[in-house]
């Protein structure tokens, strides 16, 4: 049984040439032989391998795999006789009677010689008609007659004095012969033959039906946008059903696509990009009773929906992927749309057990959403599945255009898309038992090999602050005999430039400038105070090798074994956005604090109560999984981030040449930013660092624009619209380009919800639920609800104020007035007894007389300028990012001179360069 199961089709996939393939056994493809080209597919039943399709003639057809037991159907007809005194029972019937040979109801005349198989797809199985000797479970005589007073009446096997009529049932079985090919469905009449379809959905295989049989619910959309169902698609009819029945739609609506899940859910997309949900579906009412409409996401119209056992996913017309929240039996329409990553797709499908698949827009390859579960219905990441075409038809270069997995049960583990990690736990256990077995008790023995000193050297360029130039230097790192102290010196030929002990180093970072050149930056306490780290540059390869090597020396000098998740300050490096966490933070001297740098590229970071989250430029959420804790994945974890840059092309109409880039002197530049104030060219956008790659070329934005992407207006700046009106004199179009960065880094994709800001409640004990607040990046909503590792009611009031970061103008604080000068507050942070705020113009304010009893405080005191970000913690310390004393790169700062009775402090001390800080994880 198990092997039979593993060989069933899991998913069907359709190529642009109209060929259908079944995905079997993990990742291998098997072509379904078909003479006709298929335009759409719907996977209806896994155990019987039934797939519906729409052919290029826009007719629905069905593929039924050759079953072990042939599909048989019984054709019946009735022979009717009446008793007359002269002839006894005979075919001499009254004129009002039914025909001698008829169907069961007696309404239709069915001469035995003329009765045929249901359609050309069937053939007679038995050679002759036989008398049915079975009547409601009773055995009749060989003649099989049943008697009644008159037609139609209750028939009984016993002949009585008043039995004026009798009838018997003749049967003949036929067998379905069109297996393993797409067979067209029979048409009842001409109007049905004229129907043309554009979409098909099949499902309902997990609904239980009153008759105990497995039916398939078949839904189709006609070219006119009308919805049809096809009843009695069960095994007895070889899934052909009987007829098409139209389903009424809400007034004036047309449907463009329909989806049907394996149980109740049926959704459709209207021609206007809205969604419809079929209501009232149950085991007694397979096709439901009504529709309710569902708004599309705020900034997308829908193209496709797909329905899983307990989820609904949708595709926007722009290729964006959306998840419908809170779908329940009691609430089949759900409550809201959630955007799923920046991945663009052309088709989506959900399997019978909830696995989600997509075809990527960029490459039209099959992707699988990993980590989808009941607890995390959004899943984690899209993974490309490499498919193997066993039929060897070389059609791999075909683009995939449609997928269907509705009836497929896919075990992602057995398919080895995401292997189980149990083996690794075992390896780690075994490895530690090796240590206790072989080394414990013997550690005092001498070593056969003593570790001797060695030197690593290379010629690199070193930045000389005095000369303000790069100088070629010989860089040497030597390790002493029997360890752990290494010295680093840069030597210019003979003369020693700088010499430092590895134990003096406070951070080793890879720095990348916008031109893409890489530098290795080494900080010591002294160099941090001077705000000039030791900078080394060279070929990319050299710098990476030395970065790895020096990091290795630095970490092993610090004896970093694992990284505790709590009690750390996290910072992000400027430009690269590379995260670092503090190691041995000193209370009195920030510059001598040591930093451990990890891989990753982020915009903001937040860490508290043992949880560290970081946000990418595309507002994606990443969760730190800890380093080297042994359970990190087998596949290299990859952290990605995308950024979109844009510029506008502006044109003015003139009577001679129409629209052109010759503008009026008072106009904006031909190529500009959104506001038109800054002149830009496509070349003025560079990748922020060498790790970034362009993911696309410049493309115009066609959203609400004409065919060339133009939007028109009477004049700059104005309200732009997509169609040219007679009064329009100017037009502009938006060009955009996306860039992407990928790095192997110890971060897991977090919840799919995009966040602009996050705040994690500090000081929560291990094992307890940590309240976490985020600001949703969707334009529609302001502050998102709590989203934490599990759901709990958190201490709302305190944390709303404590944590809401992100976009807030002065108005948001309706309880607290703005600073006297009217500055708009952009950001607040709260310690245990302090409140700090940052205005939009980067001025830091302290809230005076804040206390637990009087949380409003009394007034705002201006403290300092040039502060771009702040983070206070339970110790009432304030960490900040300052634009820096040198105006070059932003720098980490900590407030000094705070006293018990005067938390405002008196000055700052500065640390290493950073663009973002979170100090909320520090424990009291």
């Amino acid at each position, binding site marked *: 049984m198990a092997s039979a199961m593993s060989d069933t089709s899991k998913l069907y996939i359709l190529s642009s040439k109209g060929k259908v393939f079944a995905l079997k056994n993990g990742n291998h493809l098997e072509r379904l032989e078909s003479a006709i080209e298929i335009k759409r597919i719907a996977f209806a039943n896994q155990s019987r391998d039934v797939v519906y399709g729409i052919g290029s003639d826009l007719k629905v057809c069905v593929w039924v795999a050759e079953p072990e037991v042939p599909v048989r159907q019984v054709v019946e007809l009735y022979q009717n006789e009446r008793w007359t005194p002269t002839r006894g029972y005979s075919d001499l019937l009254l004129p009002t009677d039914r025909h001698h040979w008829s169907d069961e109801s007696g309404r239709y005349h069915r001469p035995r010689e003329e009765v045929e198989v249901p359609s050309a797809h069937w053939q007679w199985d038995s050679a002759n008609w036989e008398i049915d000797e079975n009547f409601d479970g009773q055995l009749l005589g060989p003649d099989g007659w049943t008697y009644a007073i008159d037609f139609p009446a209750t028939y009984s096997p016993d002949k009585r004095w008043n039995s004026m009529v009798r009838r018997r049932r003749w049967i003949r079985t036929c067998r379905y012969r069109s297996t393993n090919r797409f067979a067209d469905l029979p048409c009842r009449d001409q109007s049905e033959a004229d129907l043309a379809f554009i979409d098909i959905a099949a499902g309902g295989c997990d609904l239980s039906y009153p008759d105990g049989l497995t039916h398939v619910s078949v839904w189709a959309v006609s070219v006119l946008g009308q919805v049809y169902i096809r009843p009695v698609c069960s095994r007895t009819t070889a899934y052909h059903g009987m007829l098409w029945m139209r389903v009424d739609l809400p007034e004036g609506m047309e449907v463009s696509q329909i989806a049907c899940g394996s149980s109740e859910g049926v959704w459709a997309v209207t021609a206007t990009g809205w969604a419809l949900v079929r209501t009232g579906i149950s085991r007694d009412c397979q096709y439901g009773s009504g529709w309710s409409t569902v708004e599309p996401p705020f900034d997308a119209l829908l193209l496709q929906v797909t329905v899983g056992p307990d989820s609904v996913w949708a595709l926007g017309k722009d290729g964006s992927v959306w998840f419908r929240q809170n779908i329940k039996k009691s609430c089949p329409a759900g409550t809201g749309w959630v955007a799923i990553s920046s991945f663009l797709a052309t088709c989506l499908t959900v399997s019978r057990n909830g696995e989600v698949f997509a075809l990527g827009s960029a490459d039209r390859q099959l992707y699988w959403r990993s980590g989808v579960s009941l607890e995390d219905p959004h899943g984690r990441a899209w993974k490309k599945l490499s498919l193997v075409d066993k039929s060897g038809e070389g059609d791999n270069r075909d683009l995939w255009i449609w997928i269907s997995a509705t009836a497929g049960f896919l075990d992602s583990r057995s398919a080895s898309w995401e292997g189980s990690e*149990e083996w690794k736990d*075992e390896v780690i256990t075994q*490895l530690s038992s090796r240590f206790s077995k*072989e080394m414990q008790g013997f550690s005092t023995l001498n070593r056969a090999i003593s570790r001797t000193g*060695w030197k690593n050297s290379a010629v690199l360029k070193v930045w000389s602050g005095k000369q303000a130039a790069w100088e070629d230097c010989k860089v040497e790192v030597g390790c002493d005999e029997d360890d752990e102290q290494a010295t680093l010196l840069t030597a210019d030929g003979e003369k020693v430039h700088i010499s430092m002990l590895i134990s003096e180093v406070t951070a080793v970072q890879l720095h990348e400038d916008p031109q893409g050149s890489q530098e290795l930056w080494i900080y010591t306490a002294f160099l941090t105070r001077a705000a000039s780290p030791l900078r080394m540059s060279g070929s990319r390869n050299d710098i990476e090798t030395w970065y*790895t090597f020096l990091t290795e020396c630095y970490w092993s000098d610090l004896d970093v074994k694992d990284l505790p998740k709590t009690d750390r300050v996290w910072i992000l490096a400027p430009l690269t956005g590379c995260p670092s966490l503090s190691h041995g933070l000193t209370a009195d001297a920030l510059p001598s604090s040591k930093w451990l740098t990890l891989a990753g590229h982020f915009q903001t970071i937040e860490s508290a109560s043992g949880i560290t989250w970081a946000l990418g430029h595309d507002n994606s959420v990443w969760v730190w999984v800890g380093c*080297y804790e*042994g359970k*990190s994945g087998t596949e290299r974890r990859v952290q990605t981030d995308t950024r979109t840059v844009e510029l506008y092309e502006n044109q003015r109409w003139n009577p001679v040449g129409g629209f052109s880039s010759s503008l009026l002197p008072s106009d904006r530049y031909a190529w500009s930013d959104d506001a038109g104030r800054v002149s830009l060219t496509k070349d003025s956008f560079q990748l922020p660092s060498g790790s970034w790659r362009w993911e696309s070329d410049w493309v115009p934005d066609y959203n609400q624009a004409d065919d060339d992407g133009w939007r028109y207006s009477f004049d700059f700046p104005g309200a732009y619209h997509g169609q040219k009106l007679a009064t329009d004199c100017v037009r502009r179009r938006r060009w955009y380009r996306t860039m992407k960065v990928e790095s192997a880094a110890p971060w897991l994709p977090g919840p799919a919800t995009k966040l602009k800001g996050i705040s994690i409640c500090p000081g929560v004990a291990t094992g307890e639920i940590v309240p976490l607040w985020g600001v949703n990046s969707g334009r529609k909503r302001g502050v998102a609800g709590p989203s934490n590792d599990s759901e709990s009611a958190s201490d709302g009031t305190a944390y709303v104020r404590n944590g809401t970061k992100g976009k807030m103008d002065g108005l948001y604080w309706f309880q607290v007035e703005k600073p006297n000068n009217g500055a708009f507050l952009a950001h607040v942070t709260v310690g245990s007894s302090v409140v700090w705020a940052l205005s939009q113009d980067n001025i830091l304010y302290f809230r005076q007389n804040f206390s637990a009893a009087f949380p409003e405080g009394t007034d705002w005191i201006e403290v300092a300028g040039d502060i771009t970000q702040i983070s206070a913690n339970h110790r009432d310390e304030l960490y900040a990012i300052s634009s820096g004393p040198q105006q070059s790169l932003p720098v980490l700062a900590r407030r000094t001179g705070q006293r018990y009775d005067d938390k405002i402090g008196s000055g700052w001390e500065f640390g290493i360069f950073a663009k973002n800080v979170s100090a909320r994880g520090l424990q009291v």
Partner: protein
Amino acid sequence: MSDDREILRELWNGQVPVHFVLSSDETSNMEAPQPYFVLVPRQTYFPLCLDKVNRHFQKYTTQTAAGQEIWLDFDGTPLRMHYPVGVLFDLFAHDALLPWTITVHYSAFPEDELIHLASRDAMESYFMSTLKEADALKHKVTIVSTMQKKDHKQLWTGLLNDRFDQFWAINRKLMEVSSENPYFRYIPFRVYQADKSFIQKLVKPVDEEGRRQTLADLLLQVFPDHQNRKVVIQGVKMSPQTPLQWLSEHFSYPDNFIHICVHEK
């Protein structure tokens, strides 16, 4: 930097306690030689760590033995010193009492069982040639050939000096895979059984259908008889579900081969 770096370090730091005794054939009867206890790194080779042992026993040996090539046996089996120490230990002494008692010989070199590898130069060229073989199995375009002479030297001295960082600074280039092509061409491995010569085959980390191959798949290719065997790599009883690519990246010896010791159950 590689994931699971701690595992690499833990493996590198693995040492076995060895109790060296001088063969009774070699003693000069003057006084009973003191036994010699020492921790030997699993990753290294015996010829690289016998200097101190040699010095210790020289004074007890007969005149004739002095200056002759040292060789070792365990329990009567001469040890092939060109196998990594960890392999010899897992192969012969996995269940033995610790410390591992090894007998030191100077005379009667078993010419038909062992090859002469006592000199460091011979050991170095043997090590480098094994490493190059592994590289050729793993990569279509070999990495070793693109390296500089000093990188080769650094690999060897890293092993010689027992310096993890020195060795891995270069070795990571040999272990790297790209995200476009996350697998080696073939997995360099050798399967050892006591009293047999090792088995080596061409095995890929993924099959034609793109499925990740595991240790179980490898063993099936080496032993098609499905018999239950105990498999030890680097002193660790390895789960058959362990993927080969991961195993190769993390559990290879410095010569870049996975040395698999197999015991009949």
